[in-house]
């Protein structure tokens, strides 16, 4: 615990578990044995030793969110040396430590807490040493009595080194770890059962437990709820020892056993014993049924796993920005509690931040320096505006090809994002410890692109608002892991690629319009082949339709809430092969058709086999194209006066390929073939 907030989170988490255990123990009070009633506190012990943030899950309640919200409210304006304002509160260890000198009020509070911990530990040590000194000053018993007591002790597996009378004691107790000393009350007769009770306490295991609970009390000294729990632990421990005594006594002796007469016996803490509770515990021993080991173990396992692992589902999820009934601090706290844990999650969060002009979403996926700027702006109520931004614009020359030279345009009204379609990521590749690629957001209309539309293609139709071109906003990005989260940074100038067609009921966004992942060229005897490849990554953001007896059916749409732990559910590799015939092909009088057959090579070392396509080498397929379920595609072009000498084949692979094999066909005969593997051109 490195600041007051991590201590608060840890102590609240532990308190919650303690409360849970109390409720369960109360409900199973007369139903499970005293042994279980004490042993189940082991769940609390484990929880005390495990930091609250270990498994990243909430423990029944969104405590991390609540603590984070309070932290943001309190720390705003303070320059704490111990608290990271822009990071979620985390508990790294169950014990406190200082990382420097205190600066802010909250730092001083934390220092005060640490002093309190040492003070408590010091007091415990002092109390132990004082008890030890009293035993050293006690009056020894007679030799005969000592031998009798020694024999009693040996029957219980305890070897006492001495026995003394102490006037402060009201009932027997044993002190010491390695050299046990039995203390007896002075001037008062002592029953055998009381001595037996004292012998059962101080096993080394019990002493370790006692020390452990004392340390826990010191670590949580300022939490009164923890004091209450630890008192309950003490009571249950004493009840358990009573139970052990009873198990050793004969039945007729059990009837006479009255723990109410045991006062001042050694217990975990030096507090006052609650005799009424002791008597009630003794009565309960006769009610709890026996033979419940299996169910006791099962109940404890469920409690232990739940207290460690927390909830299955996250209790703190990012809310849509329009459900803004929470404060801005709470929304920032939610974003801190949901770091981007995957590259896909960071890209998804960043894209949605851009689409909704939400600086908080962008902050979640931004590097530290930019995050601070964006969060501060959000807390001040500022949004992200893109109006009047200047951007590069690439008009379309065909449905899958953009102009080579862009123009600069000024956006009058910002971006008009197609929020039903969302975004996609393309061309990711490893670079410099991260990944680079293109983040592409869909624009339903681009009014600034109206002047670049070829009007003659639309029969003098007036381009009204409904018939403006759509486009794709392409942002070069880099995504990498910064400490415990993934972040996104734009690495180049944004560009809009206009679509070739006017959306009439639905825009189409061509994946091959944007720059490719890689391009390879090969020059053969009959022409030049160019292979273009892209890769496309998408997160599943489809919101399914829901129906219930009470609700109307809702259609599916695009989920606008960031998914910081998303994974890419769709990955595909579009490709395009274009073949430009060699100069002079027009002079070949007998040339009737030119075709391309393309086969993706999936396995390493796979050899192409076009034999199945030989069936299409027929006059009936003079001007035709097709593909099969293996991803093999083909295109035959009729050679006439309108043909420009180029053949193109496109396809999509659902898995990454080792390469592409291409076969050139002239007049239904194979002329040459190429194979390109992993950027290496095997040539014809």
């Amino acid at each position, binding site marked *: 615990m490195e600041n007051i907030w991590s201590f608060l989170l840890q102590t609240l988490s532990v308190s919650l578990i303690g409360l*849970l255990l109390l409720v369960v123990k109360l409900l199973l009070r007369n139903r499970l044995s005293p042994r279980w009633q004490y042993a189940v506190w082991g769940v609390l012990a484990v929880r005390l030793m495990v930091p609250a943030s270990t498994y990243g899950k909430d423990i029944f309640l969104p405590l991390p969110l609540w603590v984070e919200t309070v932290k943001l409210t309190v720390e705003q304006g303070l320059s704490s040396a111990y608290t990271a304002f822009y990071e979620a509160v985390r508990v790294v260890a169950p014990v406190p430590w200082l990382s420097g000198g205190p600066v802010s009020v909250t730092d001083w509070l934390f220092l005060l807490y640490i002093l309190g911990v040492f003070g408590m530990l010091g007091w415990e040590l002092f109390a132990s040493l004082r008890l030890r000194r009293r035993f050293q000053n006690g009056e020894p018993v007679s030799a005969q009595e000592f031998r009798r007591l020694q024999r009693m002790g040996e029957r219980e597996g305890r070897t006492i080194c001495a026995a003394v009378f102490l006037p402060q004691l009201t009932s027997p107790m044993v002190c010491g770890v390695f050299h046990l000393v039995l203390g007896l009350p002075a001037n008062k007769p002592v029953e055998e059962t009381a001595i037996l009770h004292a012998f059962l306490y101080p096993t080394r295991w019990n002493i370790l437990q006692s020390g452990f609970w004392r340390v826990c009390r010191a670590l949580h000294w300022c939490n009164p709820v923890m004091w209450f729990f630890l008192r309950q632990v003490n009571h249950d421990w004493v009840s358990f020892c009573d139970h052990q005594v009873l198990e050793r006594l004969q039945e007729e002796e059990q009837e006479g056993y009255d723990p109410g007469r045991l006062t001042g016996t050694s217990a975990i803490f030096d507090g006052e014993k609650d005799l009424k509770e002791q008597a009630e515990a003794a009565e309960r021993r006769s009610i709890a049924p026996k033979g*419940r080991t299996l*169910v006791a173990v099962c109940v404890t*396992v469920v409690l232990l796993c739940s207290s460690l692992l927390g*909830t299955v589902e996250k209790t703190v999820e990012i809310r849509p920005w329009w459900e803004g009934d929470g404060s801005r601090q709470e929304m920032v706290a939610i974003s801190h509690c949901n770091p981007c844990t995957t590259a896909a999650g960071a890209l998804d969060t960043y894209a949605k931040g851009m689409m909704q002009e939400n600086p908080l979403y962008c902050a979640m996926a931004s590097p530290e320096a930019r995050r601070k700027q964006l969060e501060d702006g959000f807390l001040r109520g500022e949004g992200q505006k893109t109006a009047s931004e200047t951007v590069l614009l690439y008009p379309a020359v065909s449905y899958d090809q953009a102009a080579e030279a862009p123009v600069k345009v000024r956006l009058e009204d910002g971006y008009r994002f197609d929020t039903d379609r969302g975004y996609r990521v393309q061309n990711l590749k490893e670079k410099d410890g991260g990944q680079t690629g293109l983040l592409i957001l869909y624009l339903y209309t681009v009014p600034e692109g109206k002047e670049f539309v070829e009007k003659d293609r639309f029969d003098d139709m007036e381009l009204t608002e409904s018939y403006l071109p759509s486009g794709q906003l392409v942002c070069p990005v880099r995504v990498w892991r910064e400490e415990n989260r993934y972040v996104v940074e734009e690495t180049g100038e944004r560009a809009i690629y206009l679509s070739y067609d006017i959306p009439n009921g639905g825009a189409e966004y061509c994946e091959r319009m944007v720059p490719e992942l890689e391009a390879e060229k090969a020059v053969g005897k009959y022409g030049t082949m160019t292979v273009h490849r892209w890769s496309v990554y998408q997160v599943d953001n489809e919101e399914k339709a829901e129906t219930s*007896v*009470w609700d109307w059916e809702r259609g599916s749409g695009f989920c606008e809430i960031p998914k910081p732990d998303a994974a890419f559910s769709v990955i595909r590799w579009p490709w395009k092969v274009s073949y430009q015939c060699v100069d002079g092909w027009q002079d070949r009088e007998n040339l009737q058709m030119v075709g391309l057959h393309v086969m993706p090579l999936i396995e390493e070392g796979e050899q192409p086999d076009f034999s199945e396509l030989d069936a299409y080498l027929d006059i009936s397929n003079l001007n035709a194209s097709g593909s099969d379920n293996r991803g093999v595609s083909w295109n035959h072009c009729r050679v006439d006066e309108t043909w420009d000498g180029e053949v193109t084949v496109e396809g999509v692979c659902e898995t990454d390929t080792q390469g592409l094999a291409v076969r050139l066909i002239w007049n239904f005969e194979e002329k040459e073939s190429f194979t390109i593997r992993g950027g290496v051109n095997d040539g014809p």
Partner: protein
Amino acid sequence: MDRNRVARAVGLIAWGYLLLCFHLTVGTIVLVPNWLCYIFFLKAMGGLEPVVPAVKLLFPLGVLLGVWEGLLWGMSAVGIQDFTLLYGLQLVASVLMIYFHFQFLTNLAEIAAQAMLPQRIPLLCLRTIRTLFTTVTALPIAWTEVYPLAVVLGIVGVVIGICTCVVLFGLRKALKRGGLPLQPEMGK
């Protein structure tokens, strides 16, 4: 001791376990809710108490579990499916369920033992298996996200439920048929 009364109680319990296995749902409304099964159990406890007094320890737990199931049923009926903030209560209910069914089946096995009926061993086995199964499904692990595992767990749950019902109906039949008299237990 009236064997027929005990047999009727065992029959009620058997029906309760049968209804616990199967859910008939229309939209978001469960037509045979779990809280109904707990009503059967609580009603049956009155008939068992003279023979197995320890069963009275289960009555408060049965009431709590019935109320909890009723709350879940009501929330589900009005379309509330998100129970994440009730996770703490769900955990307590799971723990109580583990204990309740363990002890309940143990008490029924004691009745079979008193009457020297062969259903004692199957009931103890089913008790153990059911306890382990309920413990596994109560752990905070997303079993349902792995489809084959969810199917296996579902089948195992149904099989355990059916076996329990078969044994309990058998016990009821055997009790009605006659045999050794049932003696009230003395403070066990």
